[in-house]
């Protein structure tokens, strides 16, 4: 059985403080993907998120080596908070000085609203997959569930009441849609 997150985090923090280099690698491996996902959503710019990701681990490792992390049980929250603070700090410095370093300010501009050619191709590919998924849905009611939940962001209870569905059916439609969508991507990849 997998160990609880808090237990694993405390052990990692202790090992890093005692100078264990492999523990540092484990830390990066454990939290890298999650940190990147959340930073991309926060920054809205993949390149900036990549830089923040690297800088976050640098700061976090320094704090862990010096033993200055107050609550190692909540290491995941500390890492994410550090990443977000770096992002916000970049914004503030950029706004105040009108200049900055690579991570601090230069990329902290608003994300480019015009996607590059490669991005556009990727987007088109995603759109094709979404259309395919919609086409494969069994009934018009299932299509309505997806659009009302994901696009109009209506509550599940309201959608279920309107369409005369039970919660189980709703969950099943969403689960299958997500699963099929994932399959479409893994087939392409």
């Amino acid at each position, binding site marked *: 059985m997998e160990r609880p997150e808090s237990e694993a985090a405390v052990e990692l923090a202790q090992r890093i403080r005692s100078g264990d280099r492999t523990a540092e690698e484990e830390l990066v491996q454990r939290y890298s993907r999650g940190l990147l996902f959340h930073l991309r959503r926060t920054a809205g710019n993949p390149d900036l998120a990549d830089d923040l990701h690297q800088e976050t681990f640098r700061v976090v490792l320094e704090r862990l080596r010096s033993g200055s992390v107050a609550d190692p049980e909540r290491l995941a929250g500390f890492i994410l908070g550090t990443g977000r603070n770096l992002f916000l700090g970049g914004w503030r410095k950029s706004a105040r000085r009108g200049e900055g370093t690579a991570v601090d300010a230069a990329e902290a501009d608003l994300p480019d609203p015009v996607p590059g050619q490669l991005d556009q191709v990727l987007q088109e590919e995603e759109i094709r997959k979404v259309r395919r998924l919609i086409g494969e849905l069994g009934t018009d009611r299932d299509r309505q569930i997806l659009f009302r939940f994901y696009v109009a962001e209506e509550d599940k209870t309201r959608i279920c009441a309107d369409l005369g569905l039970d919660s189980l059916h709703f969950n099943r439609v969403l689960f299958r849609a997500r699963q099929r969508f994932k399959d479409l*991507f893994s087939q392409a990849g």
Partner: protein
Amino acid sequence: MDHAYIDDNQVAERYLMGKLPPEEAARFEEHSMSCAECLDRLETAERLRLGLRTVAAREIVSETVKIGLLTRLMRSRLAPAALSALLLAVTLPAGFLWRRADLLETELARTREELSRSAPVTPTSPTTPDPEPSEITALRRQLDEQRRAAEAGREERDRLAAQVEQLEKAGGPSTNIPVVSLSPERSAPGSAPSTRISLASSPNLLVLLLELDATDFPSYRATLAGSGVRNGWQLSDLRPDSQGSLTLALPAARLQAGDIAVRIEGIPSKGQPAPVSDFSFRVVR
């Protein structure tokens, strides 16, 4: 966190939509940092959400282009059904935009809060707070844009809803439609029309039969102007019947008391339209 609970309650999706209570959002966020299964959920849900939104947005753009065909739709038997579909396409993104505006407002509040808390971490914290940090300005601008778009979407939806209602009412058989035959005007231009048409009974349609002196053109164009017709009207691609008359069915609701002049022009296969006949009548309410 319990994965069955996460699935049954769409926790990943609700997190992405900003609909989780703050404590649950923070707990899920921390959990997802090291849970590959939940990161899969989040990534797939995010892609699916963005993809569906893009598809919905493209549909609405395509439908908006079709709004230009609304005048023709108004004359079609399929009008109520077509407008209902269009209304649905407008309603979904409008709902989304309102929701998005709410989310941005929440995000703005959270960013303000984080900014106020993050001061100790920033190496060069200012002694006085920034009057308006740039990310707040950007969020505010984005929020205003979303609100404007949502408002436009709501107005469009309401307008279409009114049209759907009107057309649904008009969808059944119509009776007691006034049919008026008009001859070309012979009197001096500017004189009062000799034909008076009463629309006091509020019919749905007014049918005009316009007798042409000659039918030499492949098609004709009618232009209606005057105090009796709001914003004027132009109808193209008219073809005379075997008696040499053009038939126009006008929605009576768009006619008001006043004079209306109808100019008919012939449209040759090549070259400019040529005046053919002028008609006039007075609408009485």
